């Protein structure tokens, strides 16, 4: 069994959730690495788009910015932000990867502020960026983040980006496209999905050597679990080799 670190496992888990012949709107960092890895293993026909306007690049190296030259490497088209967002609103983009400072049991995300006063927040964060749009439009929302109590909270301080909002039926009632919503949350401890009826986050698999209790201790809300919680498969030798040699040779992410 090859040895690996938590970041490598997260990237592999994220890559495995991406089916071939689908489309994916990504940002920089882990999502980008996951997409590049998926393309090299099981999803050679996975199409990547960046919200800045790059369509179907064949990424050679990881971009630093969602709009830098590297996002355009061997791309099929360079277009506009409206075009990418409207492909998504039209229903052509299947997945998006998002993050945030806080996430709640319904997968709602906060990337705007910590504290409740909008005029004078305790910590001001960047805001939605394209997250609110992509989470409204894309069919499956994926979140990759570290697992701790400050992040997994009962109630987000500011609901920047829609998950299932207040629960079943709430997205549809708000006017969001019907066939969209949170799908997976991948952390350094576990992989979670959402209960089909209650829309609450639930544990699917625990990473090797992680207990259910440890996940509960690091989650700020009561987290449910499926009846048969399995173990996340460890990264394979193939996954690790491609990740280390081709996706992130400078150990930009996996060296963290």
């Amino acid at each position, binding site marked *: 069994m090859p040895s690996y670190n938590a970041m490598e496992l997260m990237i592999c888990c994220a890559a495995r959730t991406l089916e071939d012949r689908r489309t994916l709107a990504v940002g*920089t*960092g882990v999502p980008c690495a996951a997409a590049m890895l998926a393309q090299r293993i099981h999803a050679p026909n996975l199409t990547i788009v*960046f*919200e*800045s*306007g*790059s369509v179907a690049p064949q990424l*050679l*190296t990881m971009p*630093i*910015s*969602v*709009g*830098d*030259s*590297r*996002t*355009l*490497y061997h791309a099929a088209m*360079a*277009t*506009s*932000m*409206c075009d990418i*967002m409207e492909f998504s*609103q039209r229903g052509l983009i299947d997945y998006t990867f998002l993050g945030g400072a806080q996430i709640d049991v319904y997968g709602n995300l906060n990337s*705007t502020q910590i504290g409740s006063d*909008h*005029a*004078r*927040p*305790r*910590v*001001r*964060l*960047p*805001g*939605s*960026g*394209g*997250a*609110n*749009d992509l989470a*409204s*439009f894309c069919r499956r929302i994926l979140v990759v983040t570290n697992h701790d109590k400050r992040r997994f909270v009962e109630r987000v301080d*500011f*609901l*920047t*980006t*829609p998950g299932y*909002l207040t629960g079943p039926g*709430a*997205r549809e*009632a*708000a*006017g*969001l*496209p019907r066939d969209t919503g949170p799908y997976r949350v991948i952390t350094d401890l576990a992989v979670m999905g959402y209960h089909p009826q209650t829309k609450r986050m639930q544990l699917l698999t625990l990473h090797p050597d992680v207990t259910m209790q440890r996940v509960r201790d690091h989650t700020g809300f009561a987290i449910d679990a499926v009846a048969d919680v399995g173990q996340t498969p460890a990264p394979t030798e193939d996954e690790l080799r491609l990740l280390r040699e081709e996706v992130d*040779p*400078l150990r930009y992410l996996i060296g963290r």
Partner: protein
Amino acid sequence: MIELSRGLGELFSDPSPDAARLAIAEKSRSLTDKLTTVSDAVSRFVRDGDYLAIGGFGLNRIPTAIVHEILRQGRQNLRFAGHTSTHDFQILVAGNGMGNGRLLAAVDVAYIIGLEMRGLSPHGRRVVESGEIALTEWTNYTLALRFKAAAMGIPFLPARSLLGTDTFTRSAARSIECPFTGEKLALVPALYPDVAAIHVHEADRHGNARFRGMSVADLELARAAKRLIITCERLVPEEEMRRDPTRTTIPYFLVDAVCEVPFGSYPGNMPGEYFSDEVHIRAWLEAENTQETYRDWLRRTIYGTRDFADYLQLCGGLPRLQELRRQDLMLDRGR
């Protein structure tokens, strides 16, 4: 059409298309020579209290020299479109909380303060958390859509995002029931900036402009703004633009000033020309840690430099730019 709800955020600009038509009634439509210096363009076309928008995405294809000059000339009480705004916001917000008055008074936020993976701007946080800038929230798409509505000369456009969130509550959007389908939609008001600045690869003296790479929201912005400053890597003859009109995406009659600024997106990235200078950006973020170190940094880089060429020299000059060009062209295959 039935209005269902409205955001509590303040609308910082007038969405009226007739007011926006009036503002450009006397704008020159002729093929005149608009070539000028950065300092002159900012003196003439950026005024205190203006609503300002900056092209590009993050640190990519941004008109850095114009943003420096707005800070250098000490403009006050600007309203600003914080659309994918990283280094441009970082420079502008240095005009707040540093004893030089208040450069930014109000910001429409889609993305500010952050520099993507590089972290948050400490000074940007200090200023915004103090509450001295009025903020209304949007998203990258809905703010781009506001430019698109303005570019079309209409007062609003509908979208299916924003809905159900606090981002909507703190925006100045409204939600309605669609008269055709009965669905809920968000309506976003047109945004007609008083002035915009966009950096491109090539332009002629009249303002015809073209660039490579993603257009982000710049084609919409160029058409939405009442005044437009173009900075370009290279000034080219008019015949060169007319040889291949399919590549012109900003026509001359939108443009008020043209400035030739080689390496004008530095320390940002320019597609096909040079990559972002991550070392410089790291040093900039570091300098922001205390007000004293930041004051020294700004004195050295902006207030103490004569112009953009002087700044480039300070940042390592031609050898550094040559290295960044190699990075952008991936001569080492990105390794």
